[in-house]
């Protein structure tokens, strides 16, 4: 069902498939029986239930359940207000206690019982278990658990190789937007993205790992892909191979802010420069280069690529590839927070948060 290769002795996280549906169903039965009780009770019941699976699988499924159910409950926002109104000196007398709840209820426009039930509704383990959309499907839960497990490997990766057959450009642009260190090449009809993992870096590994993990949900949109992750799990080297059919949740709806490249293109256009956004990929031997924009300056065409994480070797190799493709007029913009010191080289324009048009033009004019 799921293509997985275990090439090392490390205990790689197992991805869930239809063999897991029976016990996930039992777990969901417990969830239904616990509706209205605190999450703490659900966690305890699941921990001791005779599900016949290791505690790590129970924990993974509960985590997935939190993602499926989402949020902290509809009335979470007023929980803090209820606490502010109700909690104070100890109410040792039942009459005093009831009076305080009633006063708060009048302010909030509800009943005293309701106020009491609201007190901890925003707290992760104390809020009641609710199923607003009814009982989730076993496969949905398994898909979210799979996503989390693959992301965990990615966050502990030395390197990963992603092979896609459709809509590769979109994925490459996403890799660039997240500022990941990657090389793209063609292999037959497939596009291969070789992305450096966080464990191959000396700094910002957590931030980088988090950015890299954001790639995984996007794979759900690709009917054909192969993801190979070389990672370190519990101190042991391991390799995970993932390919469809694998259950993954639908990719999240993009609500992203404009990328640094998009903001730069906008700023250049606003100053009257001729800018071409996302020019076609450039072949350089077996590799493919994806500049973010092309710019007319002094009657010449310059291509600009905006990078996030980078190492000195990575920048030098990228410039070499542009040169091999016959392009000399290239500027790479590097984020100085994740690639410190990279702007000491020619053709590199460093930036913090936003690429400044003046800095870019100075870099171009210096290298003209």
């Amino acid at each position, binding site marked *: 069902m799921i293509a997985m290769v275990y090439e090392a002795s490390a205990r790689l996280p197992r991805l869930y498939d239809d063999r897991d549906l029976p016990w996930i169903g039992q777990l969901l039965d417990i969830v239904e029986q616990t509706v209205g009780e605190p999450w703490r009770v659900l966690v305890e019941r699941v921990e001791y239930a005779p599900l016949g699976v290791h505690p790590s699988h129970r924990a993974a499924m509960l985590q997935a359940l939190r993602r499926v159910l989402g949020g902290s409950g509809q009335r979470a926002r007023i929980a803090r207000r209820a606490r502010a109104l109700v*909690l104070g*000196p100890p*109410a*040792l007398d039942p009459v005093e*206690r009831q009076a305080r709840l009633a006063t708060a209820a009048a302010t909030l426009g509800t009943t005293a019982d309701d106020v*009491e039930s609201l*007190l901890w509704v925003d707290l992760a383990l104390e809020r009641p278990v609710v199923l607003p959309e009814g009982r989730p499907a076993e496969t949905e839960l398994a898909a979210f658990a799979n996503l989390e497990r693959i992301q965990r490997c990615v966050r502990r990766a030395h390197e990963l190789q992603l092979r896609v057959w459709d809509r590769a450009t979109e994925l490459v642009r996403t890799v660039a937007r997240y500022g990941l260190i990657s090389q793209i090449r063609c292999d037959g009809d497939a596009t291969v993205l070789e992305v450096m993992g966080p464990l191959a870096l*000396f*700094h910002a590994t957590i931030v980088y790992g988090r950015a890299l993990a954001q790639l995984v949900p996007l794979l759900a949109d690709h009917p054909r892909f192969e993801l190979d992750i070389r990672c370190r799990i519990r101190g042991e080297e391991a390799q995970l191979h993932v390919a469809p059919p694998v259950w993954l949740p639908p990719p999240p709806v993009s609500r992203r802010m404009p990328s640094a490249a998009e903001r730069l293109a906008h700023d250049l256009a606003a100053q009257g420069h001729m800018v071409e956004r996302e020019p076609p990929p450039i072949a350089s031997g077996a590799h493919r280069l994806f500049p973010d924009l092309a710019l007319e300056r002094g009657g010449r065409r310059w291509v600009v690529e905006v990078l996030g994480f980078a190492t*000195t070797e990575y920048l030098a190799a990228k410039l070499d590839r542009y040169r091999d493709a016959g392009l000399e007029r290239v500027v790479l913009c590097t984020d100085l927070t994740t690639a410190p010191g990279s702007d000491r080289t020619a053709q590199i324009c460093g930036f913090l948060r936003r690429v400044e048009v003046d800095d870019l033009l100075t870099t171009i004019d210096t290298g003209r």
Partner: protein
Amino acid sequence: MIEAELDGERPGDIAGVAWDDERRAWRLPAEHHAALKRELADAGVQVSDEVRGRDTAMTWTMPGLRWYQEVALARWLAAGTRGVIALPTGAGKTLVAIAAIARLQVAALCLVPTRVLLDQWARALAVCTGHPIGRLGDGDHVVAPVTVATYASATSWAPRIGDRFGLVIVDEAHHVGAWCPTEVFEMLVAPSRLGLTATPPDQMAQLARHVGPVVYGLTVEDLRGDGLAEHRLVTVPVALEPAERRRYRELRRRFSTRYAAFQRAMPDAAWREFVRDALQTGQGRAALAAWREYRALLAYPDGKRAALREILDRHRGRRALVFTADNATAYAIARELLVMPITHEIRRAERTRALAAFRSGECPVLVSSQVLEEGFDVPDADLAIVVGGSGSPRRYVQRIGRVLRPCEGKRALIYELAVADTTETAEVARRRSGLGRAPAVPGGVS
């Protein structure tokens, strides 16, 4: 960065050295900077060192130190400005640390576990100097010659600022190796290191390696009525209701049968090994469930409920901290008495408001299981009620230390509720041992 010409020497032979392909240089944890320089100098190697300028010329206005604070500082200086000072909560460890900064006149980085402590340290330092104090954490990113940082912020900032300080101070030093990652220390060149704790850990290896051994230690009993407030400890025996007693016995039997069998089979096994083993079988899981259930029963039975009400009624108006065994009990008490719980789930803004209300007397009672144990400075708090907890002497010392901070005419009262004829009695005795237990210090006072 250190640049050195090594004739015939192979840098890779130096312990801990790794080749960094990115920088095309050999790397060694910054922590070894001073030792490496000494080693290279001894070998007659020419060295160019970019790490410099850690001395400061800050002026300090220090209040007088108490006798034990003077002794602690002297011991730390005598130990080569490396080591841990173990003094009870409220005995003025922060002041010893500030005196150390003033004495060495070097840039200092103070590591603290929480944002509350970040504020407290920044305030305490600002009282003693007119120079600006740097802050890393809680949304602040200001680095100054004397900077306070939370453990979390220090972890992410250390690669950038690790060469700027000559002294690193770590508060609540027993967290080193766990909450406070040792990587932070590896990234700091500071040769002088001072750890502060009320409860040195039993396993000192990590702390000793990165900060130093305990160089001076006193207990709560040593400072009673001297550096700490006078206090009285009252144990309140609580009886279970007949139905609760029956339930307790049944649950305890279910658990003990399984646990005893495991212990017979594996006499040297630790508790976590029992848990791992028990989770494999239905019987084992039932035993664990029974264990959890009887612990919950002991955490807050009717007897404790009644005793708590009576104590709070008897001491109306006093600033009381109620400590529970777990968050569930803290929420249960908060709900019954409509008092504010302080747990990790309560967000910072709300927690800050609650602490302000406690200080002003508007909310004179706070209930918590763990969060209030450390880094909570309220000299006015004079009543502690321990409703439940573990047998850990360390946690117990931290807990009662909250009400021992000295104040004019203060006499703290500590109530401890213990369910008679249950496992809780032994736990109470075990944790009490922390009060008089002197840290293992060669030549220390006990």
